């Protein structure tokens, strides 16, 4: 056990944990939105994320023609490039979400399949996405150019407030609260919540079920696409199997906070991000997963619906 690291690195670990946590939050929204509406787990979401990371690289390198060894950009061109890549990745993932729903869910829903059927079709879709990307990329990692120079706002109490870290945290907050407001305040958001409470009654109220389900997959894809953009901007690399670990972490996040619950995903993600950092630093990285899943089991033993499972029922999508 290495407690010494806390002396100089405590706040640094907190900050990095939060940044990682926000990426988890954004991916886990893809799981939690779908679960909230369909009571089904979208196991293809991890590969939607993976496709988003490649979409970001394609936007930056293929479409906007930045070389992989390009110098960092600045001014308008930087903002334009980052915004374009973010929107591109979000849209690709959003539409991919709709496609996943069409292929893996819609017909099975119409036939009244058992949950196991959905599980297998989602896993199958995810394998198709994974292996297709692997073949297309020759199994090689793809690098994204460093377009955003990693300058720092300064170091406070040992924590380095680097631009990318700060950007992920602020954007994560903005995206989360925009989604939260959308779901709670808008007409479409209310339709999503209505379906999540009762499919039958929503239908009787004139809500188009298929449209709401597609919308949910689209929104889940949008947040996952945003996560993919931030991931690629911070770590500047991606690979066909990048979705597995991050997807698992995001899924854990959703369960930890209470799957189907937006705010649960938010706190769950931040908690997991920080917990991972401290577990790795104090116990060693080899104990990270053991710690995370021990905590998960303990939480589920005490609160089977996750930390916020029932407490904030109103925000359930």
């Amino acid at each position, binding site marked *: 056990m290495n407690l010494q690291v806390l002396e100089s690195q405590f706040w640094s670990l907190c900050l990095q944990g939060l940044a990682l946590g926000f990426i988890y939050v954004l991916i886990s929204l893809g799981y939690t939105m779908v679960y909230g509406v369909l009571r089904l787990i979208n196991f293809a979401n991890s590969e939607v994320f993976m496709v988003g990371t490649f979409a970001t690289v394609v936007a930056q390198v293929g479409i906007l023609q930045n070389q992989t060894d390009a110098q960092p950009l600045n001014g308008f061109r930087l903002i334009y490039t980052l915004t374009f890549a973010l929107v591109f990745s979000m849209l690709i993932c959003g539409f991919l979400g709709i496609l996943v729903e069409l292929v893996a869910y819609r017909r099975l829903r119409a036939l009244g399949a058992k949950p196991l059927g959905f599980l297998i079709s989602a896993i199958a879709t995810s394998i198709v996405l994974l292996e297709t990307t692997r073949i297309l990329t020759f199994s090689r990692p793809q690098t994204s150019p460093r377009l955003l120079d990693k300058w720092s706002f300064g170091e406070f109490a040992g924590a380095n407030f680097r631009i990318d870290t700060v950007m992920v945290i602020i954007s994560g907050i903005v995206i989360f609260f925009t989604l939260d407001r959308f779901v709670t305040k808008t007409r479409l958001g209310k339709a999503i919540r209505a379906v999540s409470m009762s499919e039958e009654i929503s239908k009787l109220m004139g809500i188009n079920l298929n449209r709401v389900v597609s919308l949910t997959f689209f929104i889940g894809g949008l947040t996952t696409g945003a996560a993919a953009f931030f991931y690629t901007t911070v*770590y500047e690399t991606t690979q066909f199997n990048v979705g597995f670990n991050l997807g698992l972490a995001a899924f854990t996040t959703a369960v930890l906070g209470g799957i189907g619950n937006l705010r649960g995903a938010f706190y769950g993600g931040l908690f997991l991000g920080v917990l991972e950092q401290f577990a790795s630093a104090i116990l060693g990285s080899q104990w990270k997963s053991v710690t995370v899943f021990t905590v998960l089991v303990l939480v589920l033993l005490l609160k089977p619906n996750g930390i916020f499972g029932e407490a904030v029922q109103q925000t359930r999508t």
Partner: protein
Amino acid sequence: MNKKIQRSLAVVSAATLLFGVSAVSSAGAAQKTVYLAFQAPLTGANALTGQDELTAARFALSEYNATNPSVKVELVIADDQGLAEVAAVVAPGIAANKKVIGLIGPAFSGATQASLPAYKATGLPMISMSATRVSLTDKKAPVNGFPIFKRVVANDKFQGPALARYAIKGVSSPSVYLVDDKTAYGKGLADYTKPSIVKDAKIAGSDSVPENTSDYTSVVAKVKASGANVVIYCGYAPDAAKFVKALRDGGYTGIFAAGDGVLKATFPNNAGNTAAEGARLTAADVPFEDVATAAQMVAYTKLTGISKPGTYVTSTYNATNIFLTCIKQGVTTRPGMQNCLTAGSFKGIAGDTIKFDRYGDIIGGAAVGAFTIKAGKIVYVAVA
């Protein structure tokens, strides 16, 4: 398509999966053709290694078949995903196929160990291009590869100390942080590197970060807190690229060193050229583009679509050519191949002489090369 056809198609494809290996070989039995099997991870998380190696085997074979030899050689390709449990299922299929007279592979040590019983039982000679676990050629090990197993890479017993030596070379009061990736390869290499570090330097700390981790910031925090001036990473290139980038972004300015798993032409680029600059790498494998002729590189790129060959391409090319040399000498059976490999002396693409000892390692040990990264390119320095 009616249901009956669909069903029979499903049965046929299932049968192909089960008996695919033998089906391939019997189809070509009428021609004068012998088969070499190739076993490596071709799908899954470690697909990159296997796919790179497969390009080399295919390339060596294309060169051979282009000479219109009297005996044609074809590949039987098996995917073990680099996993012991998959290899244990795949190996009996290849072993049972009597038309296969030699095996290029397996690529990974764990998969090799799991495959050995099947190959030993049927006397199939094998040359691994990248299984570096020491026990595979250790006469005292409970499961070694004697007599059929050979390999054309240095085992970790040689590479570990060489890596430690090279990493701390010229560093005043070296203090080393040792990180592995928890894989059989990474952990094994770290275990053989550690004693040499203890002997010649100070260990500032160590960590085992699982393969495919995205975020290395907690390790960087520990490295900084420990005051280490040398970081040795035992793992593979994609992770090393993320790690070295996180180290440099986190303000670490010391040495970064790593083993053969990282020596990939794509590593500097993936790490962002500045982060990887000056990294010290060792390998029993020389980058293919450094030893191949220009014409060979053109032909290789034309055949595979890859212009920057990956790790173990040279060793796979050598392993394949050793088999081909024996076949050229008229070998068409497994016992014949076994005799040829045991007694023969072969030439590597770099002009080196390859002769195997009783337990399957290259006599004199395959040399461990020292490399560094200069201006975004891997540059050979010397023997480490």
